[in-house]
């Protein structure tokens, strides 16, 4: 079939059996876009509209509040620890699962997905059960000065848990698709394992890796339920950005709550923008 014939078919059938009629197309597009506007764009717009309701000055003041800055700092530190740890794990997991055949592989990859189906609140709960006063790991910590719950380590732990599968999930299908021919070629040419990984595997997966890191980071910075259970809500100390949003909201300080929320919304937008660019320039598809 040459191209002109195909065009003819497409044209001739555009209102019959191969595609929908013009009205149906219009209707479907309208439904789809209205749904997106109503459910996604409007809430996003609300965040910024409410944040700026009392003008830029209030907005600036809200952002420079000391407790707010402390919340931002804590959020950044927590995900700066959680994300790299999950990155190393994600690469190791993807390497073993995608490049090798072994028994128990299905079980392993199911277990990696497990945190996806655990409610954030339950995540918080399991660490409270572990490190709380009557927790089974509490005796180990009793005589030390190490504080896990209601401190940075607890927040980092739950952040790691909720974002656990993100990077591995992104890398496994990617590495499976690429097979191991290139690595084998590099090895046969005399490269050692690390060289092969750095110079062959990593360049192949770097965009998927980046996207996984971005998603992981967005979720780690935005986690609410799990962090809420283990945080202790100490102002200026263990309040992450999402928790600070809730606190401000509960203090009738709506403009400030939405100002803080707008930082997180911007983070989300940046994540989406980078992802869109990656897809466009590197043909990355989830």
């Amino acid at each position, binding site marked *: 079939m040459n191209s002109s014939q195909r065009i003819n078919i497409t044209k001739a059938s555009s209102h019959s059996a191969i595609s929908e009629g013009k009205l149906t197309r219009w209707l*479907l597009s309208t439904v789809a876009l209205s749904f997106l506007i109503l459910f996604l764009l409007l809430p996003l717009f609300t965040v910024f509209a409410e944040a700026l309701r009392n003008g830029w000055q209030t907005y600036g003041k809200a952002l420079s509040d000391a407790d707010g800055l402390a919340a931002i700092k804590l959020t950044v530190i927590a995900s700066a620890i959680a994300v790299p740890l999950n990155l190393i794990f994600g690469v190791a997991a993807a390497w073993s699962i995608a490049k090798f055949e072994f028994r128990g592989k299905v079980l392993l990859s199911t277990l990696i997905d497990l945190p996806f189906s655990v409610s954030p609140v339950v995540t918080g709960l399991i660490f409270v059960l572990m490190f709380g006063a009557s927790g089974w790991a509490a005796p180990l910590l009793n005589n030390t000065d190490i504080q896990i719950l209601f401190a940075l380590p607890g927040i980092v732990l739950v952040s790691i848990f909720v974002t656990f599968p993100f990077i591995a999930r992104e890398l496994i299908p990617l590495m499976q698709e690429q097979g191991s021919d290139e690595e084998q070629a590099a090895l046969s040419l005399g490269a050692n394992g690390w060289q092969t990984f750095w110079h062959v595997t990593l360049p192949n997966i770097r965009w998927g890796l980046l996207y996984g890191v971005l998603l992981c980071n967005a979720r780690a910075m935005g986690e609410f339920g799990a962090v809420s259970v283990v945080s202790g809500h100490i102002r200026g100390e263990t309040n992450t950005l999402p928790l600070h949003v809730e606190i401000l909201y509960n203090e009738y300080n709506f403009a400030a709550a939405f100002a803080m929320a707008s930082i*997180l919304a911007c983070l989300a937008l940046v994540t989406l923008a980078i992802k869109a660019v990656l897809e466009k320039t590197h043909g990355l598809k989830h």
Partner: protein
Amino acid sequence: MKFKTNSPLPGFAPALFYTVLYLALIVVIPLSGLFFKTAELGLAQFWDLISGERVTHALTISFTTALAAAIINAVFGLIIAWVFVRYDFTGKGLFDAIIDLPFALPTAVAGIALSTLYSGSGWLGSLFNKIGIEIAFTPLGIVIALTFIGLPFVVRSVEPVLRELEKELEEAAASLGANRWQTLYHVVFPTLLPALLSGFALAFARGVGEYGSVIFIAGNVPYVSEVAPLLIVIKLEEYDYAGATAVAAAMLLISFVLLILINALQAWSQRYKSSSQNVSTTPVQEHLA
């Protein structure tokens, strides 16, 4: 049978060792703590704790609202995926990027934005109030929040399958005399179904456990709009560790079943896809014979 098939690639042992160690430390050991705690309760007490009226109501509310939201998402997610794969329009790239917003936007932010939007004095809430519908602080509000959270799961599951679906298949159906609805019903829909179901299940599973966005927009009234995760938090706040653990374990068990279901669906989806590609005309001929 050997544990591992031979491979020339190095690094299997350390990579697997690290993977399993990290998995055990972060996920398996803490999670099993929950089950040991539940086991301590004994079956009778466990059943007692989760069969209380308030708990069953909370679980029912969580699962029904998540189900409703997942159904809404299945319908509209399918339409959205269809429109984005098949049609061209201005601003498509922008809208396409925005579909993933719920993945990237923190749930608490979504929660305060949605509850502001849908409360009686909000832009949308005031419109609905005029026709006598209250959304914020009712179970309907929970459905709205869960719809927001779950949308991308469906769209992103269906999209790749739809993109790979060859137009030739539809053309063949059409050339054999099928009208558009027959083609959609007999050819397109069966191919999409596994992906749609798996997106549906993912959205559902996520919705059941959702907390951050829900607590702002739900009225949190026991028996009416109190979801299971909130009940866990409330039980924790009442020093009722046994109760919290039991509800959490019940939720987890149900979620595990869902997870297994999702994996099965995905496997089914894979098989279906490859078989339909290999013998691409058979389904059509079968249906039209």
